[in-house]
């Protein structure tokens, strides 16, 4: 039987959840035996080449590019797992959600104390910001949630191995953390 395929995505986050995945230490060798990675920043594969079993999503959804890629992930992955507080709640980037977007941009690029000759970036290559930062489940259906900022290596390991071996993902108390 072919190894299960895993893809990972970094949306609006800090890459900490991907780092936490690498933090499983030597279990990464075991993981390499268990799975094969498709589209992921870890191997720098840019597009889906085939249907994937598990998609791991880091980060909230803050711009049109995030939305497009999240929908691609939903189309190409059998199981989608939102990983970490940004993917689950919007996280720290979602602190801007109670401030109108225009005010955020003006504060960052025009009125901030360190701004000199500021202008709000409008290059067509830059993704367009959404009005708010959305958790992944407000954009597409998400099958499983792994909380944490980031989820610890043990949490990721426990959940991944359970998912890949068809077991129930029942996280013990100490592995459910929102920070």
């Amino acid at each position, binding site marked *: 039987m072919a190894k299960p395929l895993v893809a990972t995505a970094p949306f609006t986050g800090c890459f900490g959840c991907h780092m936490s995945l690498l933090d499983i230490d030597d279990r990464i060798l075991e993981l390499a035996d268990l799975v094969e990675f498709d589209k992921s920043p870890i191997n720098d594969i840019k597009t889906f080449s085939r249907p994937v079993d598990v998609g791991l999503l880091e980060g909230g959804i803050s711009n049109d590019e995030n939305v497009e890629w999240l929908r691609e992930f939903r189309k190409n992955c059998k199981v989608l797992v939102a990983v970490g507080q940004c993917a689950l709640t919007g*996280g*720290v980037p979602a*602190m801007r959600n109670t401030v109108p977007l225009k005010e955020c941009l003006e504060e960052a690029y025009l009125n901030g104390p360190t701004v000199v000759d500021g202008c709000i970036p409008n290059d067509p290559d830059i993704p367009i910001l959404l009005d708010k930062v959305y*958790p992944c489940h407000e954009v597409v259906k998400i099958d499983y*949630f792994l909380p944490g*900022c980031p989820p610890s290596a043990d949490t990721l390991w426990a959940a991944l191995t359970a998912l890949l071996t068809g077991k129930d993902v029942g996280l013990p108390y100490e592995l459910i*953390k929102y*920070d």
Partner: protein
Amino acid sequence: MSDETMTIIIDGVEVAAQPGQTILEAADQAGVYIPRLCYHPDLPPGGHCRLCTVKVNGRPASSCTFPASDGLVIENDTEELNAFRRTIVEMLFVEGNHHCPSCEASGDCELQAMAYRLGLLTPTLPYLRQPRQLDASHKDVYIDRDRCILCGRCSRASKVEDGKTVFGFEGRGIHKRIAVDGAKGLSDTDMSVADEAARICPTGCLRVKREGYRVPVGQRTYDHTPIGSDIEHKKATR
């Protein structure tokens, strides 16, 4: 203590209760944990949060305000009630702006701990994302209303323990918020850092300044043991 002890039955187990006790007080004394957020043992019960709702002879009632009486049959730790409690906690999370990763109460927060205990992986109800007012005017204490769950502990503690009236509710329904008795904010009240009210908030809403992040991750109140373990521990050691 009166010698006319009564017996109530919680989840099929007989629990002794004294006249004048509420169901929640009797349960606590017996080492049976009923989830709660607005209740605090030093304060009169508020009945605000409804987390402690149990079924009393088949009807839902808040156990922090319901007097114990002989022969009551109570359901507490059932999947039905815990599902209600999970939904209440979820609603509290999406109504406020609770950013756990950047909150100094994280790890000691009773709202967060309740979510952990009830096995809530993440809230999935739609977020309200309403801006709420921050009050950092006081030199020692701040109010971050993003994290307020309207439990009213601060207002009860200020009245009962401190003999002041620093806090109160204003507005109704979704517009209800915690207000202070001072036109210019908390600095305009007789709030003191030594007040009981300053350290009674279950979340990160009312906090003492310059105290955050003193305890490292891994040593905070709810890092290893669920909220309510102290009460359940009583039963284990009896």
